[in-house]
């Protein structure tokens, strides 16, 4: 086993552990922080795959912006007062059903996906910023621009909703 | 609006010009002002090495003076205690015995002379009241202490030493004006 495979197992265990802890921890703040830890270990995976740009952007966007906003909201809401209102059986059943459906979808995806095409990540240069930029702005220009328009729409919509005025 | 005096300034709520709105010129001029302060003369006095000069009329803790031959000037007349607005001074008089002429100038002297420094307001009335030039306020300070009892200064704290080197100089406070004031006929103890 090489050093990077040790690192891979360490990061994987960390990611799964913190994801599970995010689900089962009592305090919402702890959940948010465990989720942040998950994001960091996933960023570590990106670096192992020689995709530094993706790793850094992952940290900036998810850990640096989105999770900070989550933390911000959770802090302001003061959810620490524990209220255990028992959920009705009907809701629980639906939750199990949807969860099971998602699992079936995942199993289907992984069965159809050929895992054998793994190649040495050090050789693949696609994750480096120069190559990524060329791919994004040449081959996938239309989807890229379309998604940016989508974000703009979402932003304008959020501002409109926040304005609290009759249109 | 009718202005009562010329001292008031009318505050205008005018809209700011572009130059004022970007704030940068104001910030830069402010920073130049603070920068010029770097080279100003510093006002700090490095205390234990350099001591600040007291003004001539500074009123610190009292001293009981001796005369030139080393005899106590105080005659325990009690005028200082009467003059004291804070009622800080108490004394007990005693009669001079034969053989004590070198210690006390007058026939009567203060056997006990106490000033409560927690009550004293350092007004200097005791000094003004004294007909014998016996009590003066000096530049010395009253030190802090943990016990209230230690603030009652007795004769051992207040009397100046006998030997000429360690005499306490009060010439700053023995001005001609002060001496003239002491001869004032209206002062009760000077009345003939």
């Amino acid at each position: 086993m090489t050093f990077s495979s040790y690192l891979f197992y360490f990061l994987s265990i960390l990611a799964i552990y913190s994801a599970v802890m995010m689900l089962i921890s009592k305090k919402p703040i702890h959940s948010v922080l465990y989720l942040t830890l998950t994001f960091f270990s996933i960023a570590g995976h990106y670096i192992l795959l020689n995709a530094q740009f993706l790793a850094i952007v992952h940290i900036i966007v998810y850990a640096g912006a989105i999770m900070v906003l989550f933390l911000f909201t959770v802090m302001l809401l003061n959810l620490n007062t524990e209220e255990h209102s028992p959920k009705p059986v009907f809701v629980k059943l639906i939750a199990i059903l949807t969860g099971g459906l998602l699992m079936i979808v995942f199993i289907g995806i992984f069965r159809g996906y050929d895992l054998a095409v793994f190649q040495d990540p050090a050789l693949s240069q696609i994750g480096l910023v120069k190559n990524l930029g060329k791919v994004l702005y040449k081959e996938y220009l239309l989807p890229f621009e379309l998604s940016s328009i989508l974000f703009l729409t979402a932003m304008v919509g959020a501002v409109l909703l926040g304005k609290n005025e009759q249109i | 609006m009718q202005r009562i005096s010329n001292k008031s300034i009318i505050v205008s709520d005018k809209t700011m010009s572009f130059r004022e709105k970007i704030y940068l010129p104001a910030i830069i001029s402010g920073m130049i002002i603070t920068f010029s302060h770097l080279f100003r003369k510093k006002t700090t006095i490095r205390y234990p090495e350099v001591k600040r000069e007291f003004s001539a009329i500074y009123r610190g803790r009292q001293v009981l003076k001796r005369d030139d031959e080393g005899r106590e000037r105080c005659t325990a007349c009690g005028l200082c205690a009467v003059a004291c607005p804070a009622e800080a001074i108490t004394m007990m008089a005693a009669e001079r015995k034969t053989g004590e002429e070198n210690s006390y100038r007058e026939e009567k002297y203060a056997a006990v002379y106490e000033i409560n420094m927690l009550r004293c307001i350092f007004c200097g009335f005791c000094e003004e009241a004294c007909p014998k030039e016996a009590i003066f306020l000096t530049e010395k300070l009253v030190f802090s202490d943990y016990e209230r009892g230690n603030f009652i200064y007795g004769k051992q704290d207040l009397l100046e030493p006998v030997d000429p080197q360690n005499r306490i100089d009060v010439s700053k406070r023995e001005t001609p004006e002060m001496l003239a004031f002491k001869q004032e006929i209206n002062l009760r103890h000077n009345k003939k």
Partner: protein
Amino acid sequence: MTIYIIYKTILASVILIISLLVAMYSTLIERKMAGFFQDRLGPDRAGPWGLFQPLADGIKLFFKEEFMPNTADKFLYILGPSLTMLVALLTSAAIPWGPSFLINGKEYPFQVADINIGILYVFAIVSIGVYGIMIGGWASNNKYSLLGAIRASSQMISYELAMSLAIISIVMMTGSLSLNDIVAQQKGFHWNIWYQPLAFLIFLICAFAETNRSPFDLPECETELVGGYHTEYSSMKLGFYLFAEYINMFISGAVMATLFFGGYNFPFIDQLGLSPNILAIAGFFILMTKITFFGFVFMWVRWTLPRFRYDQLMRLGWKTLIPLAILNMVVTGVVILLNK
């Protein structure tokens, strides 16, 4: 290869020690400067000119009573200052401190890690810097701490945006995200400040906000929030928070010097005909001089300007700096296109 790893390890530790030392003495210089600006002398009792004052302060902080609120979240309470300190020290890895050394014909770069996306690395570190303050402020279980933490996070998120938008114009001019390339391109006197003064101004203002320095020190504003996010902290945990601020100051000075003032470059760098090793040392000292200058500017501004009000802070960030940065970006793009 092993020599290379040993060299990098030594370099990393040296830079770590230097940034800690610089931060230590910035506390003294800050107090001295505060004194001078107010016609005082500043601390001058511990050692000659007060040179041992940082040591005395450090010892004092170590021996202070360790206090933890009863209701605090124990783990997060300790994690907060540690994270702040860790994040403050991380950035120095990506900064090129001087030209490469040349030993036995082999090149040893004067930089711990030449990441090809150095600027993004710096921004990633800056963006996770807010966690330490937020966690610490929340874990203290104190209203003032929480308010300070919330102020800190919203302020830092807002100013991060303008900061990165200002940097985009630099990246557009250089065509690279690597800090090494950006410095190499400013050879001699072709510093970016001559081409991008507006970007520099925006970056400078944002750097003040990101390091929580006056006039943007609202997170710890004593007059309103007692002590802000570190109200409940004492002993060395408080020391970590205070210390991290000075390390951040040092690092942001280094980033500003690297991005806008040519890093280790100085005029007539080639005409002097120095050997590469001497040049590396000289470049390092030139960079340190620039950083010292920025440190002075940080202190100068702190003792000149009053604190912003919170709505003024937000208005400045969102309604002034971000549009200005976008404008600067567009103009830069147009000029680059026209010059092609």
